């Protein structure tokens, strides 16, 4: 069953701009994760935020989590053309044995 939904489905920005992607989910979670996928490749884990955390940083990435609204956002600052990829949120749903449920993804295009 679908848990996470990303918004927007597609995002096109200029190099140097910030990119914000949002994710909403439906049930209680242990943690929420963001992944990146280059076209035709496997997914790469970017960042994990636990249900008791509100914000987390990793390099140019900033993730927020609002469990009251069941939503998360991924911010990529000072974007580069190499950031062009699809980004997925995934939820580790409570009492589901560590299975991840993925959203449909946001396709980000960063133009040089």
């Amino acid at each position, binding site marked *: 069953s679908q848990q996470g939904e990303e918004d927007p489905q597609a995002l096109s920005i200029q190099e140097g701009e910030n990119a914000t992607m949002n994710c909403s989910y439906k049930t209680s979670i242990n943690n929420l994760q963001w992944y990146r996928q280059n076209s035709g490749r*496997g*997914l790469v*884990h970017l960042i994990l935020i636990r249900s008791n955390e509100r914000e987390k940083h990793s390099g140019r990435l900033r993730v927020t989590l609002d469990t009251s609204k069941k939503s998360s956002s991924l911010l990529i600052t000072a974007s580069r053309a190499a950031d062009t990829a699809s980004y*997925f949120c*995934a939820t580790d749903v409570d009492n589901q044995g560590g299975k*991840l449920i993925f959203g449909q993804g946001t396709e980000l295009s960063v133009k040089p």
Partner: protein
Amino acid sequence: SQTIHQWPATLVQPVGSPLSLECTVEGTSNPNLYWYRQAAGRGLQLLFYSVGIGQISSEVPQNLSASRPQDRQFILSSKKLLLSDSGFYLCAWSVGGRHGYTFGSGTRLTVV
């Protein structure tokens, strides 16, 4: 170091033929193993997961099956492929629910 191998990278199979996709993990013991399928432009659908040798949980009833004959080997099979089995198949592993998944590079299956 921990790595995951998935092969083949691409596969074209006729309808009604059998399928066997293999995934192996190195550098870790007793991982949780997962098979996902990704339709074009869509998110990932969890097909099977395994928490130990011989333990397989199916998420979606379908034309596929999975087996885990060894601790670090996960196999996705079908006796007779359907056109609807076409897609991008991804294997992943994790250890517990506190860390992200590590994905293989994927197999692009086209059933003709």
